């Protein structure tokens, strides 16, 4: 022991004159750090109730509860997270995971109560003092719990694709599909939005498990056209995919296609093992498009005998005659159709109702009817000179190409319209060697066609002229040509709201001569095969049927579906109509038996 050691403790006195460490008013003067993980904030308006926070929470601290304000919104479950602070550990995985980006944390942290049941609150719905606190934890830029970017799809380069009718999209390879399938967060929001309510998360999971046969089985539960929909579906599911809010939506369509592509047609029967009995009932279906064949598939599974009447020489309807083969190769369409037909569906080709058989005859001969005749009559522009022989209809051009006929578009083509038919007609014309101009009365953003289709047609060299309103068709000097007079349009906001309307500028008119003009401004139904009396009974609005629940009409036996009966007019809706009509027909045919396969409301 030395003196220094003895004295050293007294050095503590040197601190006596320093500023004290003590925080004078600790509760007030020390807010949490800017990124502190305090109490939860949820922007309920942005939240979509996907439940991913609930799923990632290892403490089971988050319940998804009904909040009526948000029920019925598109792509929103109407549920909102409710936190249990008797469970939470403030790890913020829920914040990191939140695909909507609506969840974050404030930097508040003091909550004292004598009642532990109080620690339950629905953030953003119940009032909290911290809801508007700008500080607190949020997910840092560059940090993700799931990959936000989609696996890019390989496609034929436009200079190659335009040379032939070969399929443009390559399809995912297995490693690509596994990576893309991995991105799914399995919330199931898409299931409600899909018109057919396909089990999207489940079949994506089957990819991750590399169980493609299971994937096929899952898809056929709701959709007997997976090869087709895997290529041309309008994929509303992707538009509501939560992953798409802060990143890119899961490529649901391409994953569906991937599953089908892994399976050979000859294996379908073994994998799906569909049972078809014999109920003794006979059902007639008019139209072998997606709606009619979907109904046929599910009716056969219910054991009913099915006869399909088709006016064309092949089945598929618009899928065959309206969708070009570079988007949907015949082989893939046939994969779907052949399997349905293989279940014992009798298709009468080249049989037009009203011409070859009377509708009333069918009413007499069959126990139930399903009408799914589609929209086959091209809309007319109703402008002068429209009847010129060099004005072709888009549908006709597509049908000609699909049937192997030359539509004779010539070298210089103008396409009028902004829908998918217009884009297809334009791209088909490009493949036939023409130089193509698309005239559209509004802006590109207003085009009803898929953005991908618009993009691809531009890539393939179609020249899109927007805000161009055709006013007159004029005979050209050569009978092989035709001129069009069109005027430029200004977009004017309608004071009553809605989308802006194009207004013709009469001082800015153009006249241009083409080898042909393809009109593709929409199509309507052809219901001439129905007598006036029957039409009056079927409740037709705007040229379309207005079916009831289960697709039934006021004519007891008659069920309707597809483009001719719905507003969305796409394949997937037609497929759902067919499926649902099959349910309705089954209920109608077996009113007592509880063999109905539909799930009752629980």
């Amino acid at each position, binding site marked *: 022991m030395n003196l220094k050691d003895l004295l050293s403790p007294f050095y503590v006195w040197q601190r006596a004159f320093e500023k004290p460490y003590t925080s004078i008013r600790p509760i007030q003067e020390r807010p949490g750090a800017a990124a502190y993980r305090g109490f939860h904030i949820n922007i309920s308006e942005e939240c979509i*109730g*996907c*439940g991913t926070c*609930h799923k990632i929470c290892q403490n089971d601290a*988050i*319940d*998804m*509860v*009904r909040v009526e304000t948000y*029920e019925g919104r598109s792509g929103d*479950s*109407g*549920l909102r997270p*409710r936190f*249990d602070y*008797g469970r939470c550990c403030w790890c913020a995985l829920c914040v990191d995971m939140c695909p909507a980006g609506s969840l974050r944390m404030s930097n508040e942290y003091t909550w004292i109560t004598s009642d*532990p*049941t109080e620690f*339950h609150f629905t953030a953003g719905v119940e009032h909290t003092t911290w809801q508007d606190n700008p500080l607190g934890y949020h997910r840092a830029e560059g940090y993700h719990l799931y990959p936000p970017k989609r696996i890019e799809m390989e496609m034929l380069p436009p200079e190659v694709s335009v040379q032939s009718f070969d399929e443009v999209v390559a399809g995912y390879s297995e490693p690509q599909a596994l990576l893309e399938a991995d991105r799914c967060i399995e*919330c*199931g*929001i898409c*299931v*409600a939005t899909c018109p*057919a*309510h*396909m*089990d999207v*998360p489940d079949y994506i999971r089957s990819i991750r498990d590399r169980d493609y046969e299971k994937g096929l089985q*899952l898809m056929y*539960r*709701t959709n007997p056209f997976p090869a087709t929909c895997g290529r041309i579906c309008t994929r509303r599911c992707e538009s509501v995919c939560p992953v798409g809010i802060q990143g890119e939506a899961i490529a649901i369509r391409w994953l569906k296609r991937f599953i089908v592509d892994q399976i050979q047609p000859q294996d379908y029967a073994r994998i799906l093992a569909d049972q078809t009995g014999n109920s003794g009932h006979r059902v007639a279906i008019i139209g072998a498009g997606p709606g009619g064949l979907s109904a046929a598939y599910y009716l056969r599974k219910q054991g009913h005998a099915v006869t399909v009447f088709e006016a064309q020489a092949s089945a598929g309807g618009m899928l065959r005659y309206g969708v070009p083969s570079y988007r949907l190769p015949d082989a893939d369409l046939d994969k779907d159709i052949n399997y349905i037909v293989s279940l014992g569906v009798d298709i009468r080709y080249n049989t037009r109702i009203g011409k070859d058989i009377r509708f009333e005859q069918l009413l007499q001969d069959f126990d139930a009817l399903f009408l799914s005749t589609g929209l086959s009559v091209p809309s007319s522009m109703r402008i002068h000179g429209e009847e010129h022989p060099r004005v072709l209809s888009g549908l006709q051009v597509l049908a000609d190409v699909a049937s192997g006929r030359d539509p004779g578009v010539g070298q210089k083509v103008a396409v009028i319209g902004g829908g998918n038919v217009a884009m297809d007609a334009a791209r088909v014309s490009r493949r036939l060697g023409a130089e193509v101009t698309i005239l559209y009365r509004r802006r590109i953003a207003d085009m009803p066609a898929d953005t991908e289709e618009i993009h691809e047609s531009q890539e393939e060299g179609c020249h899109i002229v927007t805000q161009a309103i055709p006013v007159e068709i004029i005979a050209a000097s050569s009978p092989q040509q035709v001129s069009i007079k069109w005027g430029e349009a200004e977009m004017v906001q309608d004071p009553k709201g809605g989308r802006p309307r194009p207004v013709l500028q009469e001082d800015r008119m153009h006249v241009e001569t083409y080898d042909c003009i393809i009109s593709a401004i929409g199509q309507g139904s052809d219901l001439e095969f129905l007598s006036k009396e029957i039409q009056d009974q079927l409740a037709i609005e705007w040229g379309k049927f207005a079916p009831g*629940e*289960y697709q039934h009409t006021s004519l007891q036996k008659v069920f309707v579906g597809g483009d001719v009966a719905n507003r969305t007019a796409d394949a997937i809706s037609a497929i*759902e109509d067919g*499926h*649902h009509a099959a*349910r309705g027909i089954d209920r109608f045919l077996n009113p007592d038996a509880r063999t109905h*396969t*539909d*799930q*009752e*409301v*629980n």
Partner: protein
Amino acid sequence: MMSELLDRLVRDFGVTDITERPPAITTLKVSKENGERLIRELRDREGFTHLNFIACTDWIEDGIFRLIYMLHNYDSKQNLGVHIDIKRDHAEMTSIHTLWAQAWTYQRELREMYGIHFPGSPRLEEDFCLEGWDAMPPMRRDFDTAKYSAERFGHREGRVSLVPRDHMKVQLYPNRGGDES
């Protein structure tokens, strides 16, 4: 040097399944009978003087407990994991409490958490972490901790959670979608 050692271990102790594993460990498998002898040899002759831990993995599907003795050689900086498979229904292993002072603690833990017996190991039957435990050893795979907790400790009532996908089906399309079969 390591390969020489391994060759010798194969020869003398019949070790199998020699695997290099990232970042820097080698694992090998030895029979239950040769286990204690091999570990003693490694400690006394080969410089594996440090016992990192003893642990067990329950491979219930194979009916075995896999004991792992992790050894370290401070001089050559080698890590060696010795796997010894023992039967689940006759879970017993030679004690190594005479080799390292901490070994019996691990063995007590394994006794409590897996029900593995180490004859001769001190204080083996004493409670270690648990007290008054009356169920299956909790680290066994077939012990359901969530169920046990819910039954014994309960959870505060008043919580209900809905599944978004199912809720949307009930609300928006009760009669549509995939039919239940």
